[in-house]
């Protein structure tokens, strides 16, 4: 099966890759210390407004005179990697649970799906806040908090799909030649589920970016002096009238990356191969019907 992706999907992927590449390569491309406090250059407006685009600070400085561009790059590295790892973690757990629940059926299925319903009924941001408070604040905690809420939707989706393909002839054939249960799950059913799981992951990533930003906005993410987009906004809020760029620039960064992930998710969902899966296994979850992961208000 081939995944054909539309032009807007490719463009979105390109933007994400560029942002990530610049963030990771920041020490080489833009070697400015994101934590360097400079009391001589407090709240300098972005270079476009002052005319010093290539000298000094291209995107201005914040309330402590730190360079905003270098902080945005550091935040981007954290934001994208944490969201991606959280989605990957949620997918791994969710797919495993979904496979077992769908294949075993019976009481195992009932119990695991009841747990999923429980997680899905729980106010997700509050649960994530709860987990973030239990563990010492930091990027790992945020990742764990997001994954512990996020796995349930993967599990539900994959379980539904396993129920559909469990009855296929190739599964019967595998069983007839004596393949064990784990072998059937791993070698025959899992590959059939992966396009669906990866598509859901792409659809969800935009929402994960926003959740990560929300948690760090509330002060539960990476701790100072490390910059995250969410914490940059919450610190910049006090200067929203006198120096709006401090809060507005990281906000635009979140919106841009979330927008690209949502576009990519939609493009993947629209692509030929995935459409069949959405239609048979999860019509209610098809992109455009429920859309990307709903953000917690």
């Amino acid at each position: 099966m081939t995944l054909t992706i539309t032009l807007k999907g490719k463009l979105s992927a390109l933007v994400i890759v560029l942002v990530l590449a610049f963030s990771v390569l920041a020490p080489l491309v833009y070697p400015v210390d994101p934590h360097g406090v400079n009391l001589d250059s407090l709240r300098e407006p972005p270079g476009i407004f002052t005319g010093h685009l290539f000298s000094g600070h291209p995107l201005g400085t914040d309330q402590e005179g730190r360079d905003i561009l270098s902080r945005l790059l550091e935040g981007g590295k954290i934001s994208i990697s944490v969201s991606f790892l959280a989605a990957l973690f949620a997918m791994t757990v969710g797919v495993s649970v979904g496979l077992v629940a769908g294949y075993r059926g019976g009481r195992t299925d009932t119990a695991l799906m009841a747990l999923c319903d429980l997680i899905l009924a729980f106010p997700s941001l509050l649960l994530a806040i709860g987990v973030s408070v239990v563990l010492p604040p930091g990027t790992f905690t945020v990742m764990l908090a997001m994954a512990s809420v996020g796995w349930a939707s993967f599990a539900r989706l994959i379980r539904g799909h396993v129920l559909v393909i469990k009855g296929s002839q190739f599964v019967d054939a595998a069983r007839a030649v004596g393949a064990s249960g784990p072998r059937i799950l791993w070698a025959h059913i899992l590959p059939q589920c992966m396009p669906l799981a990866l598509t859901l992951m792409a659809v969800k990533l935009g929402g994960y970016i926003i959740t990560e930003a929300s948690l760090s906005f509330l002060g539960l993410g990476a701790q100072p002096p490390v910059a995250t987009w969410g914490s940059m906004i919450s610190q910049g809020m006090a200067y929203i009238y006198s120096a709006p760029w401090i809060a507005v620039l990281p906000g635009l960064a979140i919106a841009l990356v979330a927008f690209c992930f949502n576009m990519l998710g939609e493009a993947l969902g629209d692509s030929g191969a995935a459409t069949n899966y959405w239609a048979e296994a999860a019509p209610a979850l098809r992109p455009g019907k429920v859309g990307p992961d709903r953000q917690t208000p």
Partner: protein
Amino acid sequence: MGFAVYLIKKTAITVLLLLGILFITFCLTRALPGDPALALVGQRASPRVIAAIRRQIGADRPFLIQYLSYVKLLSRGEMGRSYSTRREVLGEIAQKFPNTMKLALAAMLLAVPSGLVLGFWAALKRGSGTDTLLSSISIIGISVPVFFSGLLLMLLLSLQLKLVPPSGTGGIRFLLLPALTLSLPSAATLARVTRTMVLETMDMPFIKTARAKGIAGWRVGAVHILRNALIPIVTVMGLDFGSYLNGAVLTETIFGWDGIGRYAVEGIIRRDYPVVLGSILVGTSVFIVVNMFVDIAYHALDPRVRILHK
């Protein structure tokens, strides 16, 4: 199976679900690293005072006993008192819930008409520039976090134009800003769902029949298409309304709106267990009840959905 049986079954499941949620919340609160007794009296209190407070709030008893005694408390219709303010949690929630309700209703009032109109409009102009523009706007609506759009709206409407106060709880002037903020992602989601559903319904044979019979275009749109596209739309509305009643945590925090979302977050941060347990319990119950009404609405909207026979 009658309607009463459906209600009883659903209520039983709901109670079980709530007990489960209560248990998870309980595990989380007991896992919190801070000691509520220490948080109350500070580090310098004598060990004897701390021990006395721990005994008073029941923190010295085994975990399962604490859980069961909380369930017993609930069965008497109480939720205990806040550790820090000593006020009745149930009373506080009863006082804050109407605010959350007001905010949720106002947000839905803004989101539903605009989402439906935009979605319908995009579907009628399928493939055109208008469609692309509207779809892009709706993806932007989903991609901008509320704490950022709220900030921009605050900057524009209250600091620049001085139309409304920037934050606080009160009448319609205070309500406008948070409600508008909250309605943006919801309107965007609704517009997308409406567009997809209207496009799907438009291709169905019965719409062609209706048109062939000479029924006016607007009437086909309003009666035949909308009615059939309504189920997923109602689902999204229910999910959004339910989660707003859960307390719009971020929006309430930014705009200083005195609702249960902010109450819950403050409780979590202050290690105020009764507050956390109470607000999460009330929030999730409301969420589940709203979704139950959505189930019932399916039945009324589309006779093919038979919730009663399941």
